[in-house]
């Protein structure tokens, strides 16, 4: 019988990624609610020692699939290895992070297992022994509470980055690390990673950024984003943009926040010169603290903002950058 909670941790370049601490912490809470064990699974090359650290966030048991072929994520290599691990362990709940990797892996793995999958959830609970999850749909214009049919095991979901609470690491906790078999010769056609181009800017992806400074039509042109870059650097965040700024060609599409861009949930979201079209609001409404700077007092963004400044952003943002440096010093 399916039993226990399993989380799939994520490593990049051999380092355990932050989202893994988030899902392991949540996995611990769910395992406690079920009165069952938590297993963390890591796939990679030379990652066993790092994987052991997940015990601190609550894993009772760790399974590592360590193989040079698993160094970089590809669905073609990860899905069969994980399908075997899941078959051997029969978890009742399977949790991943909704990162680029997690979204693709969960999609492909759920189809392989023939189970339901809840993508990009913002909260989880155990009700009557079953997993329930809340997930924003229509980019957050509505919320769906979902659960799984009785024959859909494991109950599978991914968690939105930056939303779940991370447990205080317990350095006294440890767990055994078990090796998983890696058998990767199924003769299936595959997609391979031909090249990895690292973004030299060192910019944190918006979906993972702790703070975001975003600009819209009010920025008036690509050069206007310079003041936002400076504010973002001061608060330690990334720069985002509204659809109108992206469609005008002022910023790259990878910067777009909204229903047809990225859905973000930073601790701090500063919207500058953004009026607050519904499709933009949808993409950032799970941010913890929202600031709006706009000279139009009737802009809809003020209805969503915790703090509003009605003024010309070009007059407010530069002194704000200086003030931020002062209070953070």
């Amino acid at each position, binding site marked *: 019988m399916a039993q226990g909670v399993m989380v799939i941790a994520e490593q990049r370049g051999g380092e355990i990624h932050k989202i893994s601490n988030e899902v392991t912490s949540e996995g611990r809470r769910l395992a406690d609610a079920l009165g069952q064990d938590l297993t963390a699974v890591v796939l990679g090359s030379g990652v066993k020692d790092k994987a052991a650290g997940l015990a601190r966030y609550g894993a009772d048991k760790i399974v590592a699939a360590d193989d040079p072929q698993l160094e970089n994520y590809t669905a073609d290599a990860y899905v069969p290895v994980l399908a075997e691990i899941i078959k051997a362990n029969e978890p009742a709940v399977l949790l991943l992070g909704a990162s680029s990797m997690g979204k693709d892996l969960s999609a*492909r793995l759920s189809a392989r297992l023939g189970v339901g*999958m809840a993508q990009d959830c913002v909260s989880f609970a155990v009700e009557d022994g079953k997993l329930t999850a809340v997930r924003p749909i229509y980019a957050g214009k509505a919320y769906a509470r979902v659960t799984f049919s009785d024959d859909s095991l494991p109950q599978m979901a991914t968690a939105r980055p930056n939303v779940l609470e991370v447990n205080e690491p317990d350095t006294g906790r440890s767990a055994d690390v078990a090796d998983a078999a890696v058998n990767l010769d199924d003769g299936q056609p595959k997609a391979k990673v031909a090249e990895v181009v690292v973004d030299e800017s060192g910019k944190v992806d918006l979906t993972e950024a702790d703070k975001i400074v975003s600009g819209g039509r009010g920025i008036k042109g690509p050069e206007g984003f310079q003041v936002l870059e400076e504010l973002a650097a001061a608060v330690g965040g990334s720069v985002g943009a509204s659809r109108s700024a992206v469609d005008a060609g002022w910023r790259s599409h990878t910067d777009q926040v*909204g229903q047809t861009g990225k859905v973000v949930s930073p601790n701090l979201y500063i919207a500058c010169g953004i009026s607050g079209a519904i499709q933009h609001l949808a993409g950032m409404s799970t941010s*913890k*603290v929202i600031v709006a700077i706009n000279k139009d007092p009737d802009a809809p963004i*003020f209805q969503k903002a*915790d*703090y509003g400044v*009605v003024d010309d952003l070009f007059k407010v943002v530069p002194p704000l950058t*200086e003030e931020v440096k002062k209070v953070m010093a």
Partner: protein
Amino acid sequence: MKIIACVKQVPDTETQIKVASDGTSIAQDGIKWVMNPYDEFGVEEALRLKEKFGGEVTVVGLGPKRVTESLRTALAMGADKAVLVTDDALEGSDALAVAKALAAAIKDLEYDLILAGQRGVDDDQGLVGASLAELLGIPHLPVITKLEASEDGKSVKANRPVEGQTLVLEAALPALVTAQKGLNEPRYASLPGIMKAKKKPLEEKSLADLGLDASEFGTGARKLKVIELTPPPERQAGKIVEGESPEEKAAALAKLLHDEAKVI
């Protein structure tokens, strides 16, 4: 090159979403239905590949009859023919069931490449493309912003931006790719295109036509069950930061973010 582009119909992104009285679906009144924006990138890329390599573009849609409209849009953009998987029993199906029905409709077609949007802007699951590749047993290049086919048309290379890096993926055809914004700028249908689209073949397939068992589809067969839909949690409008000058407002805001909100 034989190319398939998958098309979903979704509410326009400017639509206000309201929960219906059943509490588990959205109210259908006042919705403007459009082709899923990410699927539009897929259709456009299919047309560009056809312009370069020759061949044929088939658009495959799934859903109620109104989806015909989005398929006609794709035909007007330049696709050659369309297939609509439509059946009352499909209503309320989850992503896995949709992928199964699409796989059944596609497996008998000839194809080198399948394009789909990286996600529907309605359910935001992003599952159907990957699931479809899994069910068809072909490689999947997910969430791509650039696509190149080799000169011989036998393989593709695609850029996939992930957190902090871009992966260049490669696969032999047949393969499935899911389109992300940035891949291209979709064309508008021209008037002659719209006229021509009316005469292009559009075939409808029911679950029975595809040899599928209707009991495996629809709300009752969902593996992922919707308990309830709710409006998003209300955010209260907060305080307007006052000050005599922009500098004063900036100073007051920085202080609030530090002392009160404690985010900096």
